[in-house]
C-alpha cells in the first residue's frame, strides 16, 4: 500500500485465494471487485463454462484528483466464492494534491501579467488544494514551504539558465553551487523533502512534482531545472513517467506572459497531456499574434516581434504525456472511464 495517493497515476491491486475444500467440494471465485473510495474500478464475474479460478486478483490505475485533497481514501478488495462466502480486505491512505503558485508581486493584478491567477482560476474546483505566494517580499524560505508537496508548481519570476529569483531578489538555484553551497537550490530541497525511497513510498510521505511551469526567462534552456522533478529517473534510464517541466528557452516579455498559464492549464484541466497542451498554446499564441501583432496578451521571447511559436522556445523536459487531470495513460488518449483504467 502506498503511503499516499497523489496526482493521476496511482496503482492499486488486491487479490484473494479461496478457502480450503470442505465436504461440499472445492470452491472457486464467482465474483470479485476492487473499489476506490467506494467506486468499483475493476471487476470479475464468473461465467458458467469458463475456468473456475481459485485465486483472483484485481488492479487499476486511477486519478486521485477526483477526490478532494486530504481525503483518507479507502481501497477495498471484495470476492465471493461459489458457496457465497465473502472475502474482503481494505486499507487506506491520504490523498495529497497541492498546487504551489508564486509570482513576483509587481505582476500581480494585471490581466496580461498575472499568470498564477490564471492557473488558480483554471484549476479551481478540482481536487487540488491551492497555495499561493502573491504578496511582496516572499523569499526562498517562503518558496521552499510552498514547494514542499506541490504536485503542480507554477512560479512566475525573473529567471536565468540555472537560477530564478524570489520577490525579494534572492536566488534559488537549480542545482548546488560549488562556490556558494549555502545558496538554496532545488536538488537540496527535493532531497530533504523526499527523504529516502521513491514516491509514493518515500520516507517523508510528501509527494513529488507532477507538472512544473517555470514561468521565467531561460528556465528551460538546459535541463538544469529538471532538479525540480527529483527523484525522476527510473533504473532503466527511461524518461520520467507522468512528470515534466515546461520552461522558456530565452528572455520572455513580461507583458502577455500570463496567457501561457491560461491556455496551458485550461487544456490540462480537461485531461490534455502536457505535450499537446503546449502545442495548442503555441498555435493559439501564434494565431493571436497574426490577428494583432501588438496584442498585449501574446507571449513573446527574445524580441517583441518574436512570438513564442516553436517547441524549442518553450521546452518540455520529462514525460510528454504528463497529465494533471484524468488518469495517466502513457499516451495522449483518455481512458474509457476517464479517471481510472
Amino acid at each position, binding site marked *: 500500500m502506498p503511503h499516499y495517493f497523489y496526482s493521476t497515476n496511482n496503482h492499486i491491486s488486491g487479490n484473494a485465494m479461496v478457502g480450503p475444500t470442505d465436504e461440499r467440494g472445492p470452491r472457486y471465485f464467482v465474483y470479485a471487485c476492487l473499489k476506490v473510495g467506494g467506486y468499483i474500478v475493476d471487476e470479475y464475474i464468473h461465467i458458467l463454462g469458463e475456468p473456475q479460478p481459485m485465486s483472483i486478483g484485481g488492479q487499476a490505475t486511477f486519478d486521485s484528483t477526483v477526490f478532494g485533497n486530504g481525503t483518507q481514501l479507502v481501497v477495498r478488495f471484495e470476492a465471493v466464492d461459489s458457496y457465497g462466502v465473502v472475502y474482503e480486505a481494505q486499507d487506506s491512505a491520504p490523498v495529497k494534491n497541492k498546487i504551489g503558485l508564486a509570482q513576483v508581486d*509587481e505582476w500581480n493584478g494585471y490581466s496580461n501579467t498575472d499568470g498564477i491567477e490564471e492557473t488558480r482560476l483554471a484549476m479551481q474546483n478540482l481536487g487540488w488544494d491551492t497555495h499561493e505566494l502573491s504578496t511582496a517580499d516572499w523569499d526562498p524560505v517562503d518558496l521552499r514551504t510552498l514547494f514542499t508537496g506541490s504536485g503542480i508548481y507554477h512560479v*512566475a*519570476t*525573473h*529567471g*536565468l539558465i540555472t*537560477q530564478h*529569483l524570489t520577490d*525579494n*531578489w*534572492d*536566488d534559488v538555484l537549480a542545482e548546488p553551487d560549488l*562556490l*556558494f553551497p*549555502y*545558496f538554496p537550490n532545488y536538488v537540496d530541497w527535493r532531497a530533504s523533502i523526499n527523504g529516502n525511497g521513491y514516491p509514493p513510498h518515500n520516507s517523508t510521505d510528501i509527494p513529488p512534482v507532477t507538472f512544473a511551469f517555470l*514561468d*521565467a*526567462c*531561460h528556465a528551460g534552456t538546459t*535541463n538544469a531545472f529538471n532538479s525540480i522533478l527529483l527523484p525522476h529517473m527510473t533504473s532503466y534510464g527511461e*524518461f520520467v513517467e507522468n512528470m515534466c517541466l515546461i520552461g*522558456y528557452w530565452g*528572455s*520572455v*516579455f*513580461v*507583458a502577455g*506572459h500570463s496567457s501561457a498559464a491560461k491556455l496551458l492549464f485550461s487544456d490540462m484541466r480537461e485531461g490534455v497531456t502536457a*505535450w*499537446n497542451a503546449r*502545442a*495548442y498554446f*503555441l*498555435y493559439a499564441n*501564434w*494565431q493571436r499574434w*497574426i490577428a*494583432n*501583432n*501588438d*496584442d*498585449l496578451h501574446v507571449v*513573446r521571447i527574445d*524580441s*517583441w*516581434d*518574436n*512570438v513564442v*511559436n*516553436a*517547441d*524549442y522556445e518553450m*521546452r*518540455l*523536459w520529462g514525460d*510528454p*504525456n504528463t497529465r494533471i487531470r484524468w488518469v495517466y495513460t502513457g*499516451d*495522449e488518449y483518455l481512458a474509457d472511464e476517464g479517471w481510472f483504467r
Partner: protein
Amino acid sequence: MITFFRIATVLVVSLSPVAGIAQYRAEDEAKVMAFMARIGRDDAVIRSLEVKDDTIRVHFRDGGMLLHSLLSPTLVMYSNYKETKEASRRSMRESPRFSATQMEERAWSFLPEGESRSGWRVERAMGFVAGYGERCGNYCFELAKLNQGLPSAGDSLTITLDGYEGKVLTFSQLTGFEGGDPPASTIPIEEARAIAVRALDRIEHAETRGWIKHEWAAQPPTWSQRYVVSGGGSRGPYSDPVVAEWPKRMRLRWVFRGPGGEVGIDAETGAVCYVGLMMDAGADKTVRRPLSRALQPVSGSRSDEEDRSYPWLWGLAAIPVALGAWLVVRARG
C-alpha cells in the same frame, strides 16, 4: 483507417441532406494529407479529425498531431512526440547519420511553393545534441522571409529533423503575410536611440524603471531593423497613441535592446511603438553575488535597507583583529 474514413465519408455524403458538410470534411482530409505528403509523412494514418474555430485538428496513430488553420495568413503546425522521444533515446547511444549541413539543405527544401532562397534567411540553426530531452537527437532550423532585404516578422518556417532518419519531427509554418514598402525616409539611428532611451521613463514600476535606465546608461543598447505589421487600432505597451491610428501594414522599425528590455521606434516617424520589459531583468547582473544583493535597484526602499546592513559586516571583520591584538597583549604581559 484512411480507407474506412473515405468510405464513411462517401456514405455520409449520400445519406446526409446537407451534403456540403460532408464535402467539407473530405476537403479537410485532402488538405491534411497533401500537407503530410509535402513533409514526407504521407504514410501517417489519421486517428481523429475535427474542425473547430477555423482549425483542422488531426491526431495520427503514430503519435503525430497536426493543427492546420483555414484562415489566411495560414498557420500549420505538426509535431510527433513519439518520434521526438525515440530520436532522443537514440542519441544516447548513436552518433547522428546526417551532418548539420545536410540537414540544413533538407530544411531549405521545405520552403513554401514559389519561394526562393534569396528571399529568406536562416534565423536560427540548432545542431545535434546527445542526451535526454526533446532537443536531443535532432536538428532544428528556423527560416524567415525577408522584406526589402531586411528581417521581417511575417512568413516563417521552423522545422525539426531527426538526426538518424531525416524525418520531420516538428514543423511550423506561417504563410500569406503581406510584405511592406520601404519608408519614404528614415530617422537617423542616433535620433531613434535618444527617443528609445527617453521612452524608458514611461515604465510605471519605479524600481524596474530605475534599474533599466541605469543599466542602459552603463551599457548602450544594441540595435537592429525589422519590418513588422503595425497600426489598425492596436499598439504595444507604453507606445505613442498615434501608432494605433495608422492603417494596418508592415512598417520598418528600429529596435533597441538592452538589459531588461527592448524599445521599438518607427523608422519613418520616430513614434514609440512599444517599450517591452523582459522577465530576465538583466540576467548577467545576478551571477555570483551573495544572497540579498541580487538585482539591487538603484533607488527604492529595499536598497536603503540593505545598505544599512553594511556596518555589521565591518563589525564582523573587526573580531579577528581584536582577538589578535588581545593575544599579542597577553603574550607580552
